[in-house]
C-alpha cells in the first residue's frame, strides 16, 4: 500500500486505473480535464492496457461509453457541468441498455451565468435518469468509491451505470494524502467484468434498446430498471463491508458524524459537508448537541437509512448546494418526502441554500443555521427557506458595478 498526495481528479483516475478499465471515451472540460489527461498519459506509457478515444462531444462520449459497455468491456468516462447536460439525452438513454460503466462528474455550476466553480445542479439534473449516484467528500473517498462503484454497477442484479460525483475545485484540485491500494488487491476486489447476456457477438445476435409500442412494455422496462436500482440499497452495504474488511475503510450509504446523541443535524452532500463537520465540532464545544448527516447515495435514495438516522431529532437543517428554480433545495424536498408519515420525524425541517457556484459557506453561517434550529425548535415553527447571501456580498457586487460604470464612462470620453 502506498500513500500519496493526490488531487480529487487524480484520485478518480487512480480509481479507474485500479479497477482495470479497458476503454475510456473522454472529452475535456474544466474542472474535469486532469482526470482524462492523467489516464491518457498512462495509456501512452503502456501503464494502462486498452484504448482511449476523444469524440467530438459529450453526447457522443456517453453514446460510445454505453455502446462499448453493451459490447462487453469495462468503461470509464468523466465530465462536468455543461458537458453532463450536453450528454443528457444519452445519460437517460444508456441506463435502459443495462450496460454498467462508471462516469465521474466533477460538479460545476450550470450556465447561465456561465461559471467554472462548483454546485450540484449539474449532477442533480441526472437524478431521475437511471444512473446510480454516489457523492464524495474527500479524495480518499473518491478513489475508494470508484472501486466500490464498479462492483455495484456490474452486480448481476443491478447492471446500471453509476455517476461518482466530486465537487469541482474544492475537491478536484485539492491535494490530500490518499492511500492507493495495491493493484492486484484492487483487481481482486473488483473482479472481472462479466457482461452476461448483454454483448454483441457474431454467434449470438442481439437486439438492444429496441422500440416499444404502447405503455405496457414501456412500463415493464422502466419498472424493471427502478427495481434494479432499489436493489442496490441491499447490495451496496455488502460491498461496502467487503471493502472495509479488505482495505480498512468504511464508506456507507450515509455518513453520520456526531449523530447518535445529537438533537440537531446539518444535512448536506458533497465536500462542503466537511465545512459542516468543522462547525459541528465547534458548536459541540459550545455545548450544542449537533451532528452532520451526509447521504452518499442520492440514487437510489437511502430513505430507510435516513429515516432511522434522523428519527427523534429535534430539528434538521438541509443545506442545499443547488437550487431548483421555483421550488428550492432539492435535497430538502427529498428529505421531506422521507419524513412524511414516519412516527418519530423531527418536527422542524429547515431549508438553506448556499454554496452556489462555489460561494463559500462560512463557519458563522453554520453557527447562524444552528441557532435558527434551536430557536425554531423552541417555538415549534419551521422558519422560511433561506438563501445564504450577506449584505457585504451585495455591497461588493454594487461596488464592482460602480467601477464598471466609471470605466465605461472613461472609455466613452476617451473615444477619438
Amino acid at each position: 500500500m502506498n500513500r500519496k498526495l493526490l488531487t480529487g481528479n487524480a484520485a478518480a483516475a487512480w480509481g479507474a486505473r485500479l479497477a482495470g478499465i479497458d476503454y475510456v471515451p473522454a472529452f475535456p472540460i474544466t474542472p474535469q480535464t486532469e482526470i482524462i489527461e492523467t489516464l491518457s498519459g498512462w495509456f501512452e506509457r503502456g501503464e494502462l492496457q486498452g484504448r482511449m478515444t476523444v469524440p467530438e462531444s459529450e453526447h457522443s462520449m456517453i453514446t460510445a461509453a454505453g455502446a462499448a459497455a453493451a459490447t462487453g468491456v469495462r468503461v470509464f468516462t468523466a465530465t462536468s457541468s455543461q458537458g453532463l447536460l450536453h450528454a443528457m439525452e444519452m445519460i437517460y438513454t444508456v441506463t435502459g441498455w443495462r450496460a454498467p460503466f462508471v462516469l465521474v462528474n466533477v460538479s460545476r455550476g450550470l450556465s447561465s451565468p456561465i461559471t467554472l466553480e462548483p454546485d450540484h445542479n449539474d449532477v442533480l439534473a441526472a437524478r431521475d435518469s437511471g444512473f446510480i449516484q454516489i457523492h464524495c467528500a474527500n479524495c480518499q473517498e473518491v478513489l475508494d468509491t470508484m472501486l466500490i462503484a464498479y462492483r455495484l454497477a456490474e452486480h448481476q442484479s443491478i447492471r446500471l451505470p453509476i455517476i461518482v460525483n466530486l465537487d469541482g475545485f474544492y475537491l478536484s484540485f485539492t491535494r490530500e494524502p490518499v492511500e492507493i491500494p495495491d493493484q492486484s488487491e484492487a483487481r481482486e476486489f473488483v473482479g472481472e467484468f462479466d457482461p452476461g447476456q448483454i454483448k454483441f457477438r457474431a454467434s449470438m445476435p442481439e437486439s438492444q434498446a429496441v422500440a416499444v409500442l404502447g405503455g405496457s412494455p414501456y412500463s415493464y422496462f422502466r419498472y424493471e430498471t427502478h427495481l434494479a436500482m432499489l436493489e442496490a440499497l441491499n447490495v451496496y452495504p455488502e460491498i461496502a463491508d467487503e471493502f472495509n474488511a479488505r482495505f480498512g475503510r468504511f464508506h456507507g450509504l450515509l455518513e453520520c458524524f456526531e449523530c447518535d446523541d445529537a438533537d440537531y443535524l446539518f444535512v448536506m452532500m458533497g465536500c462542503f459537508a466537511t465545512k459542516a463537520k468543522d462547525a459541528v465540532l465547534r458548536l459541540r464545544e459550545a455545548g450544542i448537541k449537533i451532528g452532520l448527516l451526509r447521504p452518499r447515495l442520492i440514487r437510489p435514495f437511502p430513505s430507510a437509512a435516513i429515516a432511522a438516522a434522523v428519527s427523534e431529532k429535534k430539528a434538521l437543517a438541509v443545506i442545499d448546494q443547488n437550487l431548483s428554480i421555483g421550488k428550492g433545495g432539492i435535497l430538502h424536498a427529498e428529505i421531506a418526502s422521507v419524513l412524511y408519515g414516519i412516527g418519530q420525524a423531527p418536527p422542524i425541517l429547515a431549508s438553506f441554500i448556499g454554496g452556489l457556484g462555489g460561494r463559500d459557506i462560512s463557519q458563522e453561517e453554520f453557527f447562524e443555521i444552528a441557532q435558527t434550529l434551536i430557536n425554531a425548535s423552541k417555538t415549534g415553527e419551521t422558519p422560511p427557506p433561506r438563501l445564504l447571501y450577506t449584505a457585504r456580498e451585495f455591497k461588493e457586487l454594487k461596488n464592482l458595478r460602480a467601477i464598471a460604470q466609471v470605466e465605461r464612462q472613461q472609455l466613452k470620453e476617451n473615444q477619438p
Partner: protein
Amino acid sequence: MTDTRFARMKDLPSTHWLGAGTPMCAGCGGLQALHQIYDILGNKTVFVNAAGCMTLLSIYPFTPFRGSWLYTAMGSAPAGAQGIRDALDILLEQKHIPPEEDLTTVVLSGDGSAYGMGVSATSGAIDRGLDFLYICYDNEGYGNTGQQFSAGAKTSTSKGPRGYPGYKKDLFALWAANKPAYVATVIGAEPLDLARKIEKATQLKGSRLIIALSPCPTGWDFDPKESTEIGRLAVKTGVWPLKEYQDGRVSHTKIPKERLPVEDYLKVQGRFAHLFEPVRNEAMLAEIQQRIDDYWADVV
C-alpha cells in the same frame, strides 16, 4: 467496374436476410434498398440505428434482422458505432473473443440524422478514421413524423408556392471533402449498381457512406406501386446521380445517355404539384432543369 461477383442481375443474392412483415409503409424505397443491402452484408453485422422511420423495424420483442441491432438516438449513431467498434477491437486484441466473433459495424439512419442532427457525430467519426459503414436512407424529409422539412423539396412545413426555398445539402461532397474510404449514392431501383457498391464498401476499411435515395409514397405523395419507377426516373432525369468516391476521385457509375426532362420525375409526385397547378410555373421548372443540366455539364 471490375472484379465484381455481380456481373448481371441473376448474380444478385437469392437468399434474403431481412425478415418480412415490418411496419414500413407500402412501397417504401428505403426498405427496398435496405433489403438489397442486407442481402449482401449478411448477419455478421451490428446495425446502430438513429431515430427515424427504420427505428420501427425492431419493435420489442420482434426484429427482422438476423444479426444485431442497437438503437441509440437521432444525433449520435456514429458514436454508438465507435463504442462498439472500439470494444470489439479491444476484445480481439486481448484475445477475449476469437476473430470469427467480430462484427461489421453499420450505422443506419435517415436523412434527418445524416444531413442534420448527426453531422457532428459523423464528422467526428470520419475524423478519427472509424472503421464503419454508414447507410443513409434519404427520403428527403422527416418521414416518420409527416414529412417536415429536412433538406428536401416541398414538405409539410414548407407549403408556400415555391416549397422549400433552398436546394438539397450535398452530403456526398461533405463526406468526400474529408477523404474517407468510400462514398457512394445508390437507389433500390438500380439493384445491380447498388450491389456492386455495397460489395466494394465491404471490401474496404475505414469510414464508408452509402446514400440511398428512398422514394417515399407517403411523404412524396405517389401510389406505392410507382416507387421503383420513380426511382428509375430519378436516375434517368439526372436528379439522382449514381456515383462513388474513392482514393480522391469521384466517378459516375451510371450516366444517363439521354437524360429525360426533370419534369417527368416531378409531375408524378404530389409534393411537386405546386409546380404544375393551378398554373405551370415555367420559371421554376426551367430553374430546376438548369441546375441539373449544370451538374451534368461538369460530369460529361
